[in-house]
């Protein structure tokens, strides 16, 4: 029960920030809700609009109405797309997931394998070389990696289409995959460094532990010591951190989707920003935040599966 308190608190903060933003930001909330039209309203229409949106009521009533609306699926209409916010999200979310999930799995896999090896190897020079390279890669902004990949592989070499904006219209599944290759590669390159650094650091401390030496005394080959024993132990502290990074990555896809014109959630968030489409913005921010909360809850709930010391059972 108590474990859920932080998540509930976080959800509450997100909802409240969402509620507060248009009300503390410069300008009038109506401008955000109606876009350009707001300026053309007569005073009477304005008052009516205020009533229609419930903006004439006391703040606490507005707040309750907002929370209830959120909970019952009334997320408002997108100004930019002229459709219900939930509809836009339902269309964009699967596309982002289709890009983000495989890219993340690959990045975590590569980062783990490289990081585990770099932390374990006794060849300090190799480690320094690989670590520096990954550190550099990690330091490069994701959108810049996207621009370079796009210029080299799409424009100069012509291996991939230049823009993914016709993604939805593209008929063949194969063509859709081809359009997703460069954005996915960017996400992999931009995020694998996080996993690498965390796993490598955890591996370094596992290597100080006594049981690794004892495994060698058993006659185990280094391969078995590394992958069967050292890595699972290094993964424990890394696991939660990696999930945290994944949550942050969900927002980071904004820049990558923007460069490639990939019509996912990140791109929608950006479009909503440019158009000051506040309902859509609130909706997307809520989804991203709830996804992050969910990821953390899942991480916390699954963590004991990897660590027998946290599972119930016979204790000394």
């Amino acid at each position, binding site marked *: 029960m108590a474990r859920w308190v932080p998540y509930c608190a976080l959800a509450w903060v997100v909802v409240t920030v969402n509620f507060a933003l248009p009300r503390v930001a410069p300008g009038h909330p109506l401008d955000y809700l109606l876009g350009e039209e707001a300026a053309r309203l007569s005073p009477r229409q304005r008052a009516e609009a205020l009533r229609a949106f419930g903006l004439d009521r006391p703040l606490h009533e507005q707040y309750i109405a907002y929370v209830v609306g959120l909970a019952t699926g009334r997320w408002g209409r997108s100004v930019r797309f002229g459709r219900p916010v939930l509809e836009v999200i339902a269309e964009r979310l699967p596309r982002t997931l289709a890009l983000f999930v495989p890219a993340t799995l690959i990045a975590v896999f590569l980062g783990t394998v490289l990081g585990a090896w770099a932390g374990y190897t006794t060849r300090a020079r190799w480690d320094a070389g690989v670590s*520096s390279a990954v550190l550099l890669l990690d*330091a*490069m902004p994701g959108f810049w990696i996207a*621009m370079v990949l796009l210029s080299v592989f799409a424009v100069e070499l012509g291996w991939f289409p230049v823009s993914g904006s016709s993604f939805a219209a593209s008929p063949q599944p194969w063509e859709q995959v081809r359009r997703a290759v460069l954005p996915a590669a960017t996400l992999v390159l931009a995020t694998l460094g996080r996993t690498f650094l965390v796993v490598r650091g955890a591996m370094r401390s596992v290597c100080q532990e006594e*049981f690794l030496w004892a495994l060698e005394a058993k006659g*185990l080959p280094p391969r078995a010591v590394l992958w069967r024993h050292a890595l699972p132990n290094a993964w424990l502290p890394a696991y939660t951190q990696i999930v945290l990074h994944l949550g942050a990555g969900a927002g980071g896809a904004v820049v990558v989707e923007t460069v490639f014109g990939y019509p996912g959630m990140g791109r929608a968030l950006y479009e909503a920003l440019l158009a000051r489409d506040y309902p859509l913005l609130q909706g997307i921010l809520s989804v991203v935040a709830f996804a*992050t909360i969910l990821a953390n809850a899942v991480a916390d709930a699954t963590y004991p599966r990897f660590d*027998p*010391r946290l599972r119930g059972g016979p204790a000394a």
Partner: protein
Amino acid sequence: MTASRLWVFGAGLWLAVWAAAALGAPGLAPHDPHASVGEPWSPPGPGHPLGTNDVGQDLLSELVHGARTSLLVGGAAALGATGLAVGAGLASAVWGGLWDRLLMRLVDLCLVVPALALALVVAAFVGSGVFPTVLLLAALLWARGARVIRAQALAMLQRGWVIALRAAGARSLYLIRAHLVQALWPLVAAEFVQAMAAALTLEASLSFLGLGDPTVKSWGGMLYYAQARGAVVTGAWLWWAVPPGLCVGLTVASLAMLGFALEERVHPALRAARAGPAIWPQIPADPLRIARGVLEVEALTVEYGTGPAAVRALDGVSGHVRPGELVGVVGPSGSGKSTLVTAAMGLLRSPARVLGGSVCVVGVCWGSVDAKRARQLRGRSIALLPQTALHAWDPLRPVVDQVAEAVATHQALSRREARLRAQAVLKEVGFPKSRMGAYPHALSGGERQRAWLAMALVNGPDLLLLDEPTTGLDVLGQDELVRLVRDRTRVRSRAVVVVSHDLPTVLRLADRIVVLCDGRVVEYGPPDGILRSPEHAYTRRVVGALQALRGSWAAEVVG
């Protein structure tokens, strides 16, 4: 990161150059970055080393002026974030209680918030000036540092002298001012540097999305225009998009590198050397050589380190163990016992160096075999009960699996057979049947010790090495262990060596005793001989103390 000095130096140099460029931008830049001074879209050439953009502004001048914004925003945001982190971290650690709980909850919140998405939304609504951006980034980036500083401050508050000061009535603020801040500053510096790296990336991302201040030049802003004006689809990306991107990336990487170097100063363990195997003097394989015992040590000399600081751990130690024997090795701490055990296993690591001599197990000498053959010896021909047997388990696997793994490593058996073999030997050493599936943490010290003994014996080794086997056991446990070794090991292993500083235990077990002192064998012989007429000063002192304590007890045991 192995913060090799060269890398850190390079990182510092890069940052210094750009800091200087940022400070002296108006004088250093060849042109006014806002003025159209050349043909639009010119490639690099005389007058414009990096070419011009779509309206003819000089790209190099933009880059130099961009450093100002990027470094200023990054540095100021990092300053704010670090200030918040230090304040919150110290308040949490020093005051504790409710403060601590509230602040750490807040930290948890900030850590899971998707920073970029939130930054975008806030930037879009609050505005894009330099000052709001700095505030926003500081508010997003303080949490990690607060947690790190709190942890370190808490660790320091546990130290003896701080507890003494508190007991003497020192006020919290005095403690913070006079002691903690000084001790924490390398960590604070590391946090600053890392916050700055994160702030730079976020600022560049915001500017790249067109949410930066359009009236100021910045690296992210240059990339925004490069993208918006289509430099990516023309060849111009090479001089328009690549330099600012590299500037952001290399600056962030340099900051990260400095951060790692600073962190290593706080936690020297991060720098701990990785030990490669020590090199043995080459011994030509002699097919006619006849092994005199299961373990032969010949004039073994081992040193740690080199030069005047070198410590000689073993100095010409010789001896052997014949089949069927139980040999005890005793000696005070620092006499070279652990080095001898490690050498016998062939597991010496740098900085240990074998200066001379050899160690051979069943006639095979370490140094004359390749890694694969060496692994076949370990755990099969020579098995070890390590000094740390209580803690030397993989915490994530049941004990029985780890014993079975030892079987499977050396014998071609199916999983099931290996497990059955493991269970049989575990039972033999008196490991309770009901605990078979248990994880190490759920077992008592005695149970873990027994299980290790089973793991060492499970492949029927030629030689069993017991390294300080009674460490961490109470008197009853020690007694049980001695009986186990006497009754069980002789069945499962051809010879046994007990290495210990615990003379009474060794006296009860061994057929022959070797006394090690300062890396040399000072005495050897049967236990009663050593007990009756000890020759070396160390042995005399220990035997004398034993007899004084126990009266005639020792004589009874031996007799």
